[in-house]
C-alpha cells in the first residue's frame, strides 16, 4: 500500500475509531450501572476473546458459515442456471415467469413454518431458507442481464460463425456479468441476515441461536459480539463480490 492508500484507509477508519471512543466514554460515564445494559466496547472485545478461546464463538460461527455457504452457493447456482435458460429462451421465460413472479414476493422467512413441517428442524432447514433467499435475486438479475444484451451483438456473433451455445458463453453471459454480480452482492449480505433470523426463531445452533441465548441471560456484551460478527460477515461477503466483479469486468467497464 502506498502512502496515498494509507491516508485513504486512515481517513476511512477515523469515524469508526471516534465512534468506538465515544461508545467507551459513554458506557463508562456511570449512567449505566454494572455495564449490563450498555457494556463498554473494551468489555465487548474481552468477551469476544473469551468466547473465541473457549470455542463457543468459532463453533457457532462455523455452523452458520457452512449453512450460508451451502445455501447461498446452491441458490445462486440454481438462480444463475435458471436465469440463463429464461433469459436466452423466450419459451422457458414465458412458462416460468408467472410462477416465479408469484413466489418471489414471499419473504424467505415466510417459508419457515412450511419448511419446518416439510423437512423438520435440522441442518436442511436453514440451508433451504438461504437457498430461497439467494435464488430469486440472482435469477432475476441474470434474466435481466441476458435479456438486455444488445441484439446486434448476438447477431454479429451469428454472422461471425458462432453457434448458439458459443454466443451464450462468449457474448451473452460475459455481458450479463455486471447484473449477475449485483444480484450476488445484494444477496450475500441478505443471506447472513436471514440465517441469523432463522437461527433466532427456529434453529438451536449458530450465531443467531447464541444471540438468543445471550439475550435470555441478559448478556448484552455477547449479543453485541454476535451482531458485530454479523456486520463483519455481511460486509466481507459484499466486498468479496465487489472485488470479484472488478476483477472480471473492470477492464472493459
Amino acid at each position, binding site marked *: 500500500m502506498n502512502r496515498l492508500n494509507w491516508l485513504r484507509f486512515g481517513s476511512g477508519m477515523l469515524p469508526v475509531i471516534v465512534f468506538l471512543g465515544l461508545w467507551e466514554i459513554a458506557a463508562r460515564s456511570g449512567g449505566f450501572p454494572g455495564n449490563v445494559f450498555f457494556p463498554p466496547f473494551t468489555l465487548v472485545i474481552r468477551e469476544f476473546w473469551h468466547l473465541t478461546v473457549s470455542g463457543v464463538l468459532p463453533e457457532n460461527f462455523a455452523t452458520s458459515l457452512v449453512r450460508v455457504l451451502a445455501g447461498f452457493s446452491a441458490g445462486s447456482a440454481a438462480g444463475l442456471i435458471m436465469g440463463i435458460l429464461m433469459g436466452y429462451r423466450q419459451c422457458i421465460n414465458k412458462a416460468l415467469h408467472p410462477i416465479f413472479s408469484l413466489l418471489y414476493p414471499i419473504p424467505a422467512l415466510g417459508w419457515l413454518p412450511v419448511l419446518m413441517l416439510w423437512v423438520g428442524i435440522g441442518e436442511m432447514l436453514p440451508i433451504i431458507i438461504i437457498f430461497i433467499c439467494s435464488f430469486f435475486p440472482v435469477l432475476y438479475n441474470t434474466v435481466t442481464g441476458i435479456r438486455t444484451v444488445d441484439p446486434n*451483438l448476438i447477431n454479429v456473433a451469428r*454472422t*461471425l460463425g458462432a453457434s448458439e451455445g458459443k454466443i451464450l458463453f462468449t457474448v451473452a453471459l460475459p455481458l450479463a456479468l455486471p447484473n449477475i454480480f449485483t444480484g450476488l452482492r445484494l444477496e450475500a449480505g441478505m443471506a447472513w441476515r436471514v440465517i441469523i433470523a432463522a437461527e433466532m426463531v427456529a434453529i438451536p445452533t449458530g450465531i443467531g441461536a447464541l444471540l438468543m441465548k445471550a439475550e435470555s441471560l441478559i448478556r448484552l456484551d455477547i449479543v453485541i459480539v454476535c451482531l458485530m460478527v454479523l456486520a463483519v460477515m455481511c460486509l466481507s461477503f459484499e466486498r468479496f463480490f465487489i472485488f470479484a466483479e472488478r476483477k472480471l*469486468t473492470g477492464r472493459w467497464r
Partner: protein
Amino acid sequence: MPEIVLKAINNFVCRDISLTVKNGELLVLLGPTGAGKTTLLNIIAGLTAYRGGISFDGRPVDRLPARQRKAGYLFQGLALFPHLDIRSNIAYGLRVQGFSPGEITGRVDELLRLMNMTHLSNRYLRDLSGGEKQRVALARALAPSPEVLLLDEPFSSLDFRTSRYLMMELRRIQKQLGITTVYVTHNLLEAREMADRIGIICDGRLEQVGLPQEVFFYPENQRVSDFLGAPNVLDCDGWRTLREGLIKASCGGMNIVAAHEGDNVKKVVIFPAHIFVSKQRPPGPALNRFKGVITDILTSQFLTRFRVKAGKNIFLAELTPEAFNDMGLQKGSEVYLTLKLKWIRII
C-alpha cells in the same frame, strides 16, 4: 469472390426484390430511412426470414443459418464486443470457428497491419475514437475471410472528415481484397463516392440499379427522381458547334460550353454536386462561370443545398455544411458558380 444473386425476395418489408451483385463489385443500396435497406442486408446475412432465393456464386444459401453463410457484416452501430479487447474482437470469428491459435494470431496481425492499428491491439473500446472503432469493426468482419461483405451505414456516426477518410480506406481495402460488397447508405455523397453500381430502394422495392452516372442522370421513375433530388435542367434557346465534340448552348441568356456530339440539343443538365461554388471570382477564363445570389438554403446532416439565381436561371448547388459555413455564406450572398464541363449533360 462470389456473385450474389437475389431472386424475388419478399418479406414484411422487402417486395419482390431481384438483384445481382457482381463478383468483386461494391454495390451501394441507396434509399431514404425506412426504405428496407437494412432489412435486405439482414436477409442476405440470414438474420431475417424471407421468401425467395439467394445464392452466392450459384450456391443456394436459403437454408443456411447466418453462421454458415460466410457473410461479413458491419452493423450500423458497429456492435463491437465491449468485454473484449481489440485483438480479441477481431479474432472472435476465427476463434468460434475453431481456427488454431497460430492461424488466429497470423490473421489478426495481418488485419491490424491492413487497418494501421497494430498499436491499438490490446486496448478496449472505451479507449478508441469513432474512426478507430469503425476500423476494428471492419477488421472483425473481414477476419474469417467472408465470401461477401455487408456494410450498413458504416460511417453514419462519424464527422465528415473522418468518414471521407475512412470511405477512401474502405474502397482501397475492398479493391485490394476484391471482395463482393453490399453497402447501405441514405447519403447520396457517400453513394456517389463509393459505388461501382447503385441500387435505389424506396418503400421496400428496388426501383433502379445502374452505374452512378446512369442512376443520377437518368432516374427511371418519379420515386428515384424525388429521392435523388432534381438536377439543374436548363432549356436551350439555341446552340452552335464550337469544334468537333464541343458545343456552346444558350440557356436563358447564358452561354454554356459542353461536350456533345450530334445535333439534338434541347436541355442542359447538371447536378448540384458538379457545380463549383466560390465567394471570390475564380481566376482563369470565365468559361461556364456565372455570378448569382443565394435565394434559398436547405441544410441536412451531410449537405447544405442552396438555390442561386444567376441571370434568368435558378441553380441548385450544394456544399458540405462545414464548407458552407467556412465561406460565410447566407441568404443574399453573392457567389460564383462554375459548371464543371465534364459533368454537363445535353439531352
